[in-house]
């Protein structure tokens, strides 16, 4: 026997129903398209690596979290989902940053 939180059909406690409109989704896609175009543009422009790589990383991280927030609904859903996903992401980052350090990737490239 345990306590169970009852929720209406197709809906659960902590999950919100105020998802964006189709228009908002299209706006999000346009922003993502523009950022992708900017990313691709860097390929055709001569730029020092010290500027180019951080710029590409910033745009990549923005796109990653923008898709997760809007299309995957993390912005609207329960924070519990975000916690599970971010835990995997942080764990992967720590494990593989360590691995790359061990293999001297940061020095050798």
């Amino acid at each position, binding site marked *: 026997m345990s306590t169970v939180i009852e929720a209406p059909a197709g809906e659960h406690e902590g999950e919100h129903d105020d998802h964006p409109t189709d228009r908002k989704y299209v706006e*999000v896609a346009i922003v993502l398209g523009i950022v992708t175009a900017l990313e691709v543009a860097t390929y055709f422009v001569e730029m020092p690596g010290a500027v180019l790589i951080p710029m590409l990383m910033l745009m990549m991280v923005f796109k990653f979290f923008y898709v997760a927030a809007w299309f995957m609904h993390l912005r609207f859903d329960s924070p519990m989902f975000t916690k*599970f996903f971010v835990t995997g992401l942080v764990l992967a980052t720590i494990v593989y940053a360590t691995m790359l350090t061990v293999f001297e990737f940061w020095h050798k490239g």
Partner: protein
Amino acid sequence: MADTSAVSHGHGTGTGLSNNKLLMWVFLGSECLLFGGLISTYLIYRSRFADGPAPGDIFDIPFTSVSSFVLLMSSLTMVLALSALQRGDIRNNRVWLLTTAMLGSLFIGGQVYEFTTFMREGLGYSTSPFSSAFFTLTGFHGVHVSLGIVMLMSLLVSSLRGTLTKERSETVEIVGLYWHFVDVVWIFIFTVIYLVPSPTT
């Protein structure tokens, strides 16, 4: 007080959240570790191309940019499919599900073309540590996209049979989560593998 056995069949759960959705998020968290491993391995081996072609010599950035854009837009059509079903608009749900599957297939077609071109240029799976790491990483991603297409087609068949209704929109949402994850992984791969300047011969 209610018995927990009701949880798996009913809508009430111990956390107040959908168990299926929670499971998908846990799975996606674990997938970060899988792709993290493959990407790190690629980064370590990308300079070890032996006598074969180097990454900077063979990558076709304009072509890959178009496939990346196609996959990105498939995320939009996926979310529109979910939105349509949540409104009870079955017809548009089917249209967007089919569009998403077609965009996914276009991406896979592009990947097959890219792999074939690389093979013709002398880059086989076992040519060098770089080629093995590259084909394993992008191949694994391609398999994920292909599985996503199978799931989308199953949803479409389900819809045509009349079993995919507004009340079951969570199924589309869960497949959508998987599809968007495959997209965000490609966002990462596209930048780190293709756009960050690669070694040349």
